[in-house]
């Protein structure tokens, strides 16, 4: 469970870029996060993936109160959170394959397991041909897909994606959203910050809307009940889980 209560956030000694944020994401929910450029979407996500501490308020991430969690237990919690960064943050000296494999490697997975799951996922996002390419030689959309693959490779309990479809065309964006929905169906809580209005219209998930650092009702769609979801699209495929092989919902076809 994710819960924000009266959260404020500032960078350094600057003004508060987030103010009085309160909301709750149920386990297994799927939300969009919208707002104008500079409204604070990325900042809110930074709080969720534990890159920043709030200046006030209470944050609970996956049932952990992040104000009291000791530093040495942070890595464990972070391994349950997958992040797609707005600027990708791929390691420039590692290949596409190695970048995607990184979370598994840090988790101590064996190279056989790594090879199997990473190849499968690269295939899914359409990067099989670029497996051995360095990020510098990837196109914008290819980088973005590699970043997405890295975020989902370890089947996180919480997936946080910042503008994950800004560099791909609409067809590919829809395909990537299917990937997130598949993950969501297996129990992952998903929050996606996006500017893409056609995506939000197509995938009827509830929307959190930020305006100038505060949560306000979305002009596109007020927050709707959790169960009101679009049915899974026909070409969504499952992929197997390298880290939690017995995760709920597992057992689909393998690509």
């Amino acid at each position, binding site marked *: 469970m994710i819960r924000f209560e009266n959260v404020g956030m500032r960078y350094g000694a600057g003004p508060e870029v987030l103010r009085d944020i309160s909301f709750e994401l149920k386990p297994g929910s799927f939300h969009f996060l919208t707002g104008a450029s500079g409204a604070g979407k990325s900042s809110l996500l930074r709080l969720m*993936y*534990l*890159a*920043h501490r709030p200046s006030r308020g209470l944050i609970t991430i996956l049932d952990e109160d992040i104000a009291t969690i000791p*530093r*040495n237990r*942070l*890595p*464990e919690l*972070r*391994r349950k959170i997958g*992040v797609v960064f707005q600027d990708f*943050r791929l*390691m*420039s*000296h*590692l290949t596409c*394959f*190695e970048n995607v*494999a*990184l*979370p598994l*490697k*840090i*988790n101590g997975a064996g*190279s056989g397991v*790594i090879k199997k799951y990473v190849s499968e996922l690269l295939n899914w996002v359409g990067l099989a041909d670029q497996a051995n390419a360095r990020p510098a030689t990837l196109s914008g959309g290819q980088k973005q897909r590699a970043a997405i693959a*890295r975020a989902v490779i370890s089947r996180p309990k919480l997936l946080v994606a910042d503008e994950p479809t800004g560099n791909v065309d609409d067809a590919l964006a829809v395909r990537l959203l299917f990937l997130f929905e598949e993950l969501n169906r297996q129990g992952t809580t998903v929050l996606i910050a996006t500017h893409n209005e056609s995506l939000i219209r197509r995938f009827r998930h509830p929307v959190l809307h930020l305006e100038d650092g505060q949560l306000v009702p979305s002009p596109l769609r007020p927050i709707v009940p959790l169960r009101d979801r679009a049915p899974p699209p026909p070409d969504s495929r499952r992929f197997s889980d390298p880290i939690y092989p017995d995760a709920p919902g597992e057992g689909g076809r393998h690509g």
Partner: protein
Amino acid sequence: MAKRRGDIPLGNDPASRLLPWIIGFMAFIAALALSGALVLAAFSDRWSAGLTGTLTIQIPPPAAYDDEAGFEALQKEALAAVRRTPGVASATLLPLDEMRALLKPWLGAGADPRDLPLPRLIAVTLEAGEDVDLADLGRRLEALAPGITIDDHGLWRERLTDFMAALQLAALAVVAVVALAAVVMVIFATRGGLLAHRESIELLHLIGAHDRYIAAQFQGQTLFAAIKGGIAGTGMAAGTVVLLGHGAAATGAVLPGALVLEPMAWLWVMTVPMALIVIAVLTARRTVVNALVRMV
């Protein structure tokens, strides 16, 4: 494939690429300075061995020109007294012939000093490392007959030791500066690496890497750089020392003993890269661990 390479491209950033060179240079300088100090120590020992470790005792001839028997008895007593002294290895009465040979240049080649009333000299060799109580010996000899004097070549020895000590001090100062510089440079290089890779480090943190996982990569990198640099630098210094020794020998130097290192001294020189490696790795570890806990 992902196993062979570190996650952070540490070998790539400028600071890391410089580190082996820096450590190599410092190892070179430190090893050279240390070798210098050691060579000087051995050299000064050997040189002053010709001056120290020996004494000359001079027994003046008797005032009465004809007291041959008394003079000989006095010589024997003095010799016995010297031999009894702790720390004396041997003592010999210089034969009259040698005395005359010594005197010859002063008297002219044609002169025959056979009938002169010459003082007698006792050549004393001291045991290595022993300190002889010269004051006490002097008192005892004085008691036998006034006028017996001890010459311990003190001035020369003092000059030489002072000079050598000054040189060695300079060499050791260089070694100390190198150790300090090594710490400073490793701190800077490591901070540089942390700065250059702060985004990679943040990313590793955010996907769940422990501090020790990240610190290990820095430590390994520094260890590698220090080993490379330390060995290369010390090797070059050793080569320089050997070459200088050969060069000095080739110019036909008449130095008392060549400018070469003893085997034991080489062991000391070998401690230079080891010390540098230890200093570098510990410094890097400390710097990284301090920095990491302050990051997300």
